Every structure is written in structure tokens, then in C-alpha cells.
């Protein structure tokens, strides 16, 4: 997509919507952040007006340190061969989000997955509470960053015993120079 048309479009959108952090990652991919209030309309506009008709995927990034989930809607315009990544930041603690299942047929599947993996609720999204990948999950949603999968796996599934490993450096210290080296007594 040539730069000029892209910029024109972004300028236009900027006037109408609350858009920030526009980054052009490569000629065929631009991302920006839009406020939650404007997001649904913006995405619909992009689909209907700007011909970003293909939803590549929809996903979520957990910025635990900022306390937000960043929802990502990757839209593609086949005509211009250009992808737009729309970030929508929401709070990590149980904020409900608009659903786009009326825009794309597969969107509710993504939303069902995000509900399961992050615990995000989408308003009126069909079959939202059905199990998707997990069954009988009794922990915090696993894709949240505070969930420690290794620890969980070790506790619940256990490992075969009979394994132990030495650290070369420590091993050599014990074997070769037990009283020397950096450790102050």
C-alpha cells in the first residue's frame, strides 16, 4: 500500500476516532491503539468503508506490569495488501468487552478462546462459556502471565524421579577448590 493513501486514511480515522501510538512496522503492517469506546465502531468502519474485510486473527497480550490486556484485531485489506493491527487496551480485572461476532463468523471462536485463556468476557458473544480447549480447568486462566505453567505441571502431573544435575561451576568448586574462590567467609 502506498504511503500516501495509508497516511490519508490514518489522518481521516484520527479525526473521527481516539487513535494513538501509530507504528508502521513494515510496509504491509501498521498498528495503532484505539480507545475502547471507539473501537467497535472503528473496526466496523474499517471493514465496511476501508475494505479491511479479512480478520486475520484476534488475540490478546497480557501486560501484567501495566495491569492491562491489549486486545489485538488484525485486519487485512486484500485489495491494498495491507494489514492493520488494532490494539484495544482494557483493564485486567474483569472488564467486559464488546463482541465482534456479528462482523465475522469466526470471531466468536476467538472470543471463546480468549474467555478461556485470559478470562475476558465479551458481551453477548455466543457459546462464550463453553469449554474450548480445556476441560475441567480449576486454576486461573492459563495464558495470564501470573500463571506458572511449569510449577503447575510439576505439582499436578509430577515428573519421573531419578534425575539430578550438577552445575559445572559449582561442581568444580566443590571438587577442586572448596576453600577458595570468591565466597567470603
Amino acid at each position, binding site marked *: 500500500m502506498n504511503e500516501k493513501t495509508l497516511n490519508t486514511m490514518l489522518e481521516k480515522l484520527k479525526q473521527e476516532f481516539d487513535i494513538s501510538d501509530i507504528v508502521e512496522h513494515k510496509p504491509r503492517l501498521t498498528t495503532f491503539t484505539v480507545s475502547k469506546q471507539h473501537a467497535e465502531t472503528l473496526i466496523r468502519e474499517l471493514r465496511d468503508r476501508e475494505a479491511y474485510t479479512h480478520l486475520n486473527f484476534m488475540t490478546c497480550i497480557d501486560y501484567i506490569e501495566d495491569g492491562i490486556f491489549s486486545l489485538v484485531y488484525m485486519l487485512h485489506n486484500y485489495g491494498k495488501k495491507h494489514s492493520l493491527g488494532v490494539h484495544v487496551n482494557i483493564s485486567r480485572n474483569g472488564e467486559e468487552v464488546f463482541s465482534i461476532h456479528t462482523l465475522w463468523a469466526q470471531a466468536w471462536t476467538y472470543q471463546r478462546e480468549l474467555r478461556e485463556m485470559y478470562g475476558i468476557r465479551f458481551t453477548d458473544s455466543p457459546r462464550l462459556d463453553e469449554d474450548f480447549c*480445556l*476441560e*475441567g*480447568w480449576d486454576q486461573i486462566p*492459563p495464558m495470564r502471565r501470573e500463571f506458572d*505453567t511449569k510449577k503447575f*505441571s510439576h505439582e499436578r*502431573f509430577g*515428573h*519421573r524421579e531419578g534425575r539430578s544435575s550438577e552445575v559445572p561451576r559449582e561442581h568444580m568448586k566443590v571438587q577442586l577448590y572448596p576453600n577458595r574462590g570468591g565466597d567470603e567467609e
Partner: protein
Amino acid sequence: MFKKSLNTEDTLENAGLTVEEQQLFSNARPQAYEPYPIKAVEDFANWARANSLWILAFGTGCGAIEMRPLMTARFDANRFGVAGRPTPRQSSVFVIGGYASVKTLKRIVRSYEQMQGPKFVIALGICPVNGGMYFDSYNTVNRFDQYLPVDLYITGCMPRPEVLVAGIMELQKMIKAGKCNGANRYVDNFDWYKANQKKVIKNWDMPDYNW
């Protein structure tokens, strides 16, 4: 008939099932397989079992990908008496194709219990041994032998069809020698296995035993 015998002493509760569902499943404990009293008969039976291994067509993990070449022209396992069988009732070998997610484990347990003895389990790949690639995954079990008895392990990721053939031959040898008694182990340690299964399968909405 078996399924109605709800009041025998050594029964399982199958708690958690609705009353209608309880009627659908047996409550009787599984019983160990007793060899025929005459050794020659048992040996003959074992020979027949060894040479007619029907594998349950349940691709539980990546391992399923190598089952296809195995069963088709390149490796043609049919000539070793191996055949795929789509129903657990008729199968005698369960091939665990690698990792088992918790959700699949539930189905594996159920399918395994539906198989009629003597039955054998081959575990493919590294994941059933010690977690393999997914030792830290929250959704796959690490030690398959905690949940079902395994007769033979074939390591590799994935094990090639050639090793599968070798494994099948090894299994045949073991069966002929009468050494393959994983199913009896399952019966003997039934409560232990069930406890382990229930430890990881959290929504236990299936019967404890459903043969």
C-alpha cells in the same frame, strides 16, 4: 446381566452420574485375566493373540502421523497381523501416540476400559515416559504410567514406523512369552490408577468402570 448387578459386594459407586446414566454402566470391579489352566492352550492362545494385533484407531497425539505410513503400503503392518480397528471393543492394542492432554486422557481411559482383555498398551515417543516436549505444559500429563498400565515404550520423537514395527515384534514376543500383563496390573492397582486419574481429570463425569 452384568450391567444390572448393582448390589454385589465389590462394586464401584460411580457417584456423580445421574441415575439414568448409572444404569448404563457396570458397577462391577474389573477382573484380572486368568490364564487357561492348561499351559499348551494358553500358549496357543497367546500365539494367536500375538499374531493378530488389532490396534484401536485413536490417534491421541503426534504419533498418529506415523501410524498412517505404518498401516499403508510403505510399511504395510498388515503382514505382521496388525490391523486398525475403529472400535475399542474389538481392539487389543492401544497405541498412545505421544503426549496425552488431560482432555484426551479422559477419552483414553474410557476407550481403554472399553477394550476387552487381554489388551495391551504401547506408548510412543518421549512424552508418555517423562513429559517430553511438554514437560512444563499445564495441559499434558507427564508420566503416562500413572494413569494406565503401559506394556511397551518406544522412544523417539516421533518414533519412525520402522521402530513401531520393531516394537510390534517385541510386543509379539512378549505376548508369546505370556509376559504382557499390563491389563492385570490395572486391575490389581485399580484404586491407585483411579485415584491418579481423578487427580488430573477434574470434571470426572464418567463412570469409574464402564465395560
